[in-house]
């Protein structure tokens, strides 16, 4: 073992004592100045040792008497990282704290730790609460920065980074990212040195298979892998699909196991170590056959068990949802993706980064010579789309085959999203006190990745942000290039005949200058699948990938604005899902106008901001609080808010769970089982409930609903009593 420098570095000493030697990308990071407190951004494939770079930076901060913050996107990941750090640096007397959820507490108790592992949201919440120890932070490690491109969470992360930099100007940022497109842009915005590594320990071969019977295709792939002693990860869009697929595969996979191997698994399941693990009915039988499913509905221990068994090679197949995709290192020889659509929205494609992160798990160092990533497509058309969207192809002439090279997406800011802007505007008012909108725009939003991207990008719309009054023209300016707007104003873009103008739709026939008639419409109507129809145009591309409207729609919008006046001002912003953030905040009473066109946050506003409630949640809450009188109503409200916050549709079982936990002594897992809830979900929901209950109680207090304050506090107390002393390991993440 050799050291990298002659003078032993205290950080390396600590690492050394933990049995770690920097290599590859870590050496590059050291070279880039990580020990000198420089901010760096590391972009490298999964499994290349990014986490260690973060640890090195954290150690530097701790050694220099500051605190280190390690931010991860998922609670599960936080738990995993925290336990690793605790274990690794226990001897070095570095205290590692973990904080997830608990948005209602101010986190002062965390001041005793040297290193705090937490989620993005918790950090944001701490920042909003202006927790005292934040000033002591020296280094912040942000893992999985590609989350920046996710709606809502991305915006919150972006805002968190801006405010962290505002708060501690000399902060060291260590940003860790899986391989993404154009990482230099992000690094430049973050003012970080970029360290890129594209080395994969095992070469990856990607493949797209077209099949009409996906289930059968999965079976064939899995069996081929299993028969050659490999392991297989199958990703599914929904939990249910994952479970069903696991059941389908189990019999065939099970046949490949010898009785001895099966006995080994059974022994492992029955061992003392795993006494605490409560497996859902059915999973045990699957494990016996060397197959498992894995999703956020499983409780933490069960998931750990499944992962552990897989790592040890005792089980061969995991049918998982995308939970497994980020962070958790679980390689397999073959990775199969059954769908490339977003779990939340079947119409939307997953980002290329996510796809490649999943495929990147193929190939297990030390076991496999190469990894195989397979994407299943339902038709050759879909296969083409997948190929074009996610891969760069280069054909090999000798055998007429194609080589698929991953194509990574550039990251885009999601701060632009309506609810996000509104929320961040509130944050801004809380931060700056009485101020004008322009002020906030300049101080908070001008530093954003959003602005950075729009300046960099030639195809960014005329108007990036619209914080106050919204007319049809401003709404369109948010979705059109400057040139298009100028020509539309001069009436040279196209000629328009308005054909329908109702309360919900404005449509017309647009004759473009290049000829051809197009039917364009702005519709605020609801389509049968429950989404707002939005802009439509018969040219086929109502808006491009940058969210820019086609020239026909721009022309229609401007003509409508001229001809229809207020009707257009009503319909077009609705159709474009634009809203007036300032108006929303004022209407909800979260801010109020003061002199000289300035606004200031109200008491309610600041409470809401610190409670970390999203704008829709607080809107629903204050709309319904006056009509919530008994516990039954309270539970209904709680369920309603929880569904909005967690993004799941909850039914009566949620109310039964909360009521059950609060009023009976039944074990939570049993209660959850009797209500047909996954234990993991049950814990997550209870956590959310505690937070929301404290929020309800706080808002009710401001509103003067004494009775409701009493009721919610009582309910919160009884929940705390049952959950209060639960170990963090029992807390669950969100999917």
């Amino acid at each position, binding site marked *: 073992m050799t050291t990298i420098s002659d003078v032993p570095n205290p950080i390396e000493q600590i690492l050394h004592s933990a049995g770690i030697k920097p290599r590859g990308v870590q050496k590059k990071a050291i070279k880039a100045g990580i020990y000198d407190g420089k901010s760096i951004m590391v972009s490298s494939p999964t499994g290349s040792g990014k986490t260690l770079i973060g640890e090195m930076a954290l150690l530097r901060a701790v050694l220099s008497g500051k605190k280190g913050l390690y931010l991860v996107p998922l609670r599960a990941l936080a738990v995993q990282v925290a336990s690793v750090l605790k274990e690794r640096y226990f001897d070095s007397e570095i205290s590692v704290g973990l904080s997830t959820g608990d948005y209602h507490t101010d986190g002062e108790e965390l001041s005793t730790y040297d290193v705090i592992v937490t989620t993005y949201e918790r950090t944001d919440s701490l920042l909003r609460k202006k927790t005292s120890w934040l000033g002591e932070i020296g280094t912040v490690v942000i893992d999985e920065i590609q989350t920046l491109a996710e709606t809502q969470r991305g915006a919150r992360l972006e805002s968190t980074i801006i405010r962290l930099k505002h708060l501690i100007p000399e902060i060291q940022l260590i940003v860790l990212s899986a391989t993404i497109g154009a990482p230099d842009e992000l690094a430049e915005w973050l003012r970080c040195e970029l360290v890129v590594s594209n080395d994969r320990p095992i070469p990856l071969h990607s493949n797209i298979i077209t099949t009409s019977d996906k289930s059968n295709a999965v079976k064939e792939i899995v069996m081929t892998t299993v028969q050659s002693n490999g392991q297989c990860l199958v990703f599914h869009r929904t939990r249910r699909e994952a479970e069903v697929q696991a059941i389908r595969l189990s019999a065939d996979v099970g046949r490949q196991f010898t009785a001895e191997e099966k006995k080994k698994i059974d022994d492992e399941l029955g061992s003392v170590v795993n006494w605490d693990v409560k497996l859902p009915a059915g999973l045990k039988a699957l494990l016996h056959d060397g197959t498992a499913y894995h999703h956020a509905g499983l409780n933490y221990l069960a998931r750990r068990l499944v992962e552990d068994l897989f790592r040890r090679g005792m089980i061969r197949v995991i049918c998982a949802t995308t939970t497994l995709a980020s962070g958790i290192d679980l390689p397999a020889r073959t990775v199969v993706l059954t769908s490339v659509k977003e779990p939340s929205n079947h119409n939307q494609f997953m980002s290329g980064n996510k796809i490649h992160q999943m495929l990147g798990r193929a190939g297990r160092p030390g076991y496999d010579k190469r990894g195989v990533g397979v994407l299943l497509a339902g038709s050759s058309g879909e296969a083409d789309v997948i190929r074009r969207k996610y891969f760069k192809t280069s054909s090999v002439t000798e055998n007429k085959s194609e080589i698929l090279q991953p194509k990574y997406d550039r990251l885009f800011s999601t701060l632009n999203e309506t609810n996000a802007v509104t929320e961040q505007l509130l944050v801004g008012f809380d931060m700056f006190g009485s101020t004008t909108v322009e002020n906030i725009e300049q101080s908070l939003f001008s530093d954003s990745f959003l602005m950075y991207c729009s300046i960099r990008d030639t195809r960014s719309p005329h108007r990036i942000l619209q914080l106050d009054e919204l007319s049809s023209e401003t709404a369109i300016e948010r979705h059109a290039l400057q040139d298009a707007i100028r020509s539309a104003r001069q009436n040279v873009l196209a000629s328009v005949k308005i*054909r329908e103008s109702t309360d919900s739709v404005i449509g017309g026939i647009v004759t473009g200058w290049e000829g051809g008639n197009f039917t364009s419409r702005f519709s605020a109507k609801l389509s049968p699948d429950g989404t707002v129809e939005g802009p439509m145009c018969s040219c086929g591309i109502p808006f491009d990938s940058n969210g820019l409207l086609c020239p026909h729609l721009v022309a229609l919008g401007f003509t409508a604005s001229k001809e229809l006046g207020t009707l257009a001002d009503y319909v077009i912003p609705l159709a474009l899902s634009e809203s007036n953030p300032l108006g929303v905040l004022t209407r909800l009473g979260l801010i109020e106008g003061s002199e000289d066109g300035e606004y200031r946050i109200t008491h309610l506003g600041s409470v809401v901001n610190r409670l970390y409630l999203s704008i829709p949640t607080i809107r629903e809450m204050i709309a319904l609080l006056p009509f919530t009188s008994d516990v039954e109503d309270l539970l209904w409200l709680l369920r309603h808010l929880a569904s909005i*916050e967690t993004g799941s549709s909850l039914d009566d079982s949620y109310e039964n769970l909360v009521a059950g936990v609060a009023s009976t002594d039944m074990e939570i897992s049993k209660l959850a089982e009797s209500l047909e809830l996954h234990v993991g979900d049950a814990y997550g929901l209870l956590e959310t409930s505690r937070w929301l209950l404290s929020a309800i109680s706080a808002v009710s207090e401001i509103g003067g609903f004494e009775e409701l304050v009493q009721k919610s506090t009582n309910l919160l107390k009884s929940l705390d009593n049952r959950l209060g002393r639960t170990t963090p390991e029992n807390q669950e993440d969100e999917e």
Partner: protein
Amino acid sequence: MGKPLILGSEPEKDPLESRTRQSMIVSSDTEIDWDSRSVEQKWSFPILIGFITILVVLFQPILSICLTIIILSTLYFLPTVSARREIDSIRNSQWIILKPRENILSETDETLLYRDNDDNRHLIGLELFEPSNMLFGSLGSMIRSLNTDHGFVLRVSMRLESIEEVINQDRIRSNKEEYLESLGKSGRHRFISVRGGLWSTYVMLVGHLRDLHSVSTFEAAIHGAVPTSGWKQIENKDLAKRLTIQKSDYLSRFYALGHELSEWLVQLPSELAPEVGSNVPSEFLSPIKTIASDYPLGVAVNPETLQTGPVVGFSHNDLVNGTLVCGGTNAERKRILALLIQALIAKEKRVLLITGNPNYGDLAGLTENVITLELGHDFVLNPVDPDNVPRTEYVGQLISALEILAGADLTGAADLEIALNRTVAIGNTTVADVRFDTAEELMDSPSIDKTSQTTKPSNKSLVGLDAVRLLHEGSGARAFYGTQTIPIRDFTKIPYTVLTINLGSVELDTFAFDLLMMKLAGLKQDSDFVVIFNEPLNLVARNRRHYYRIPWIEFLAKRVKKRGPLVVAMEHPADFSPATIGLLTSCVSSRLRESVDVKEAVDLLGLSVIQTGMHSKARHSSRETSFLRVIPDGMAVIANTGGELGYPVKLNDSPDLSEMTSTTDVTKRLAEYTTCVKESSSRKTDSLIEHVMGRDYEHGIAVLRLLQRYEPLTQEAVRKFISTTTDDVPDIEAILMKLERGSLILKGHEIHSGVSYLNYRLTMKGTMALRQNGEDLMK
């Protein structure tokens, strides 16, 4: 114009008219002397004369004796004097005696050969001595069968006979003779004179033939044409003699009563007429008196005299029962339509002319008071707006109409029907709103097994949806995409509308006609609103390209006709399916060229009806139908309720189509016609919210107020709000539905962490309603 006769059609010329007309005496007396046609004088005058004579004889006997002597001597000398004067005048006149040409005629074996310079003709004479008194035959067919290059001689000689002489010569049958004798002398004379006199008649025919072969055919032709026994060839010698001395034999062998003779004679000009150009065949039966026609098109033409008759046209009932205008050139049909529309406007009927041919646009020039529209230009037809048709019926019909665009049979396209039904039900929608429930939506359902069974929209539905897409994304957009410019029922208020459908594609035009017919069929019955379809492409069923459409077309046509007066103009009547054409009862047809068209028109015009007509002829004429092919310009054949059979009509001149209409202020004038509706609908006794919500008024206000403050609010929250704020159990669905239908709130969606929530927000109308409500409260 001749006087109409009581019995049948009027002869070209009254044979009696040729007699010198003396003076006109009008008398109410029926005792008219047949011979002199004079009315017997009244008794008073002879009595007065007699009385005076008696007085003169009694008081002045010498005077009376003198007078008597003068009169008797005058009578005695008068014949001598007049004879002498006649001889003198003859003597004084200058007569030239011509020498007959010689060697012109020479006898051959069979015929008489006539030589004139370089021209040779064979003459053959036939005579008829004893025809029966009813002469059957057709002079027309005879003439056609003869080679008349050189003409022929037909001589009919007549001589008045004394009845006594005839009886004495035993030339009539004994039973008749007995009857005549029983009448007495004066009775016999009256009997004869009432029947036009007794004439002895003789017929001679001389044919001029070019060659000998024609001789036998000539005879055969005559025998065939006038199938009566008794034709006898005149001896060549005899013929030569008669021709040479120009002498006629006045042997009286043929007897005909006056009216029988007139039948013979009046046939002649009309039978000859068709041979000269394209005149009207006499088989047509023209009306001889004016039938009450509400909408005159022209005057009837007497097929026998070619003289114009009474004014004819269509009655209102004809239009109600369906009228077809066919044949001819565009100009011809346009003339007929112009005349018809002019008459309709004059009668203050409201007219909607829908033309598939832009050339007919100038029909708008008939009056100033016209609204001219062009589909796709200033008129948008919204297929998902059912106008007044009940939705349940409308959607099914719409699918049938879409078949032409889809080019396929869409029966059973369930998903399409559901999608259309939803779009139509929502109201205020356009074709761009039609879409399926996405199948992927169902994939969200927890059971994976279900996904394999989820019914994807059938291929038919997809094909149908593609057709719908044509209507808003394709070439049909300009005509079918958008809110309908004018509700169909407003057309019934406009005096005259010309709507041109010319989208440049057969399929789209057809669809437009289908749609218009569907919507028009949904109107209330209105006998004063006349719809005229010119060249409706959708009714064309001829080449069976879209065979599956035929039942649909027929259904549609039936519905449209049920609504009220209907006129369809189409060049080719054969384009219609049999059932469609069966719906139209009256017809006016210009020249038809194609046999199939003629075949159709013949049925409609009632031309092939076998019937015994006025002149004892079997009315089964191919000549009427062939006339359809040669109708000259300005004429047409019409069949209306007045006469069951078609007859020719001479059309009036086309009206002036140059009435200046300003096209610029169509919208303004439209507004004038439609304001009355709007006013009535805007007059309300209660506030908008009350109107929309009815007894759920309070809930409505509460929800609107809540949304005013917190919009957009999720659906769950709004529901909870309604259920918690009231003690009784209100129908939440109904309240929300009413608000949404009344456009007071708008349903939308929002996404939180990837889960979509339905939400509600106030519409502009909702805000105004709240404000109105607030103002009401203030008052």
